[in-house]
């Protein structure tokens, strides 16, 4: 980037990672997808694995992730990212492979693929962006929408009798023997972003050691779908999403 040179006795201490392209993202202002992309690409830059990493993009708002992440990428049909990542990893076992999916993608249409990928213990990193809504298609209810949440398909709020409880798919997946490392994070403040970064680099290290599936959920915002400002959405997320989706490790390797 043209700004990344030292100025006036000051040195650059933070610049956009080179593993991100210069293409401006199409994401709404304040959307967590952008932060997750950046942190993931920072890890890949710092581990120096840009040439060895292959990502699989979802259908959902992150459908154009391949335009932003400057690595080899493959787009998958809706919900099928983990199945495609399985194929990629099996053909190219020495590459680092990750899938990147939203909640509609991973926990609704792709539930079958998700469960069986983790059950087989595929040696990949699965990133799951849980913003509790279908962002791309205009804010319909997702399996992970919380009770009382108003969406275009639950205009009076989600209620158990007709719509069921929010699906804690991450806790479910952690039960499967193939799941090696399962952790829940967020990107709503700097401390949270730093923790996520650590979890991503740990997962790539486990992948190198052929340990099995690493699964990271990121509880994120969708200011447009939630009809809030970005700052309000992060406050709402802390107050309303974290009690249902508490942050922290869910399954860690036995030492």
């Amino acid at each position, binding site marked *: 980037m043209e*700004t990344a040179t030292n100025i006036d006795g000051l040195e650059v201490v933070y610049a*956009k*990672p080179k593993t991100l392209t210069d293409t401006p*993202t199409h994401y709404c202002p304040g959307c967590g997808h952008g932060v997750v992309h*950046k942190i993931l690409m920072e890890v890949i830059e710092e581990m120096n694995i840009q040439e060895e990493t292959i990502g699989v993009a979802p259908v959902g708002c992150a459908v154009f992730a391949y335009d932003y992440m400057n690595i080899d990428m493959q787009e998958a049909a809706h919900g099928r990212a983990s199945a495609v990542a399985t194929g990629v990893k099996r053909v190219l076992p020495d590459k680092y492979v990750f899938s990147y999916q939203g909640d509609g993608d991973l926990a609704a249409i792709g539930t079958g693929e998700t469960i069986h990928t983790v059950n087989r213990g595929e040696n990949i990193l699965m990133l799951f962006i849980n913003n509790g809504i279908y962002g791309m298609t205009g804010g319909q209810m997702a399996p992970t929408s919380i009770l009382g949440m108003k969406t275009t398909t639950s205009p009076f709020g989600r209620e158990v009798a007709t719509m069921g409880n929010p699906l804690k798919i991450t806790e479910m997946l952690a039960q499967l023997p193939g799941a090696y490392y399962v952790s829940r994070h967020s*990107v709503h403040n700097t401390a949270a972003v730093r923790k996520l970064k650590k979890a991503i680099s740990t997962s790539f290290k486990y992948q190198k050691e052929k340990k099995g599936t690493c699964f990271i959920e990121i509880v994120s915002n969708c200011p447009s779908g939630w009809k809030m400002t970005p700052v309000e959405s992060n406050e709402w997320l802390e107050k309303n999403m974290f009690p249902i989706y508490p942050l922290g490790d869910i399954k860690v390797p036995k030492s």
Partner: protein
Amino acid sequence: MIRGTIIVSIEICKACELCVTACPQDCLELSAQLNSKGYRYAQLKNDSCTGCINCAIVCPDSAITVYRQKKEIKSATQKIS
């Protein structure tokens, strides 16, 4: 006090204000001008920036480059105190 500054990519910024709330020094604001996308971009409003990088970490559009006083100067002052 460690001296720092930031440069915001004006045309990339989307005025989400997440950097403004992340700044512990309260040195960011949205501009009165608009960029070509129609957003009020983030800018420094005073010189209290320490180069802590908090704003840049939370920026979803990676629009912020952060600069900080060189380390040698910092370690020299640390030796004195």
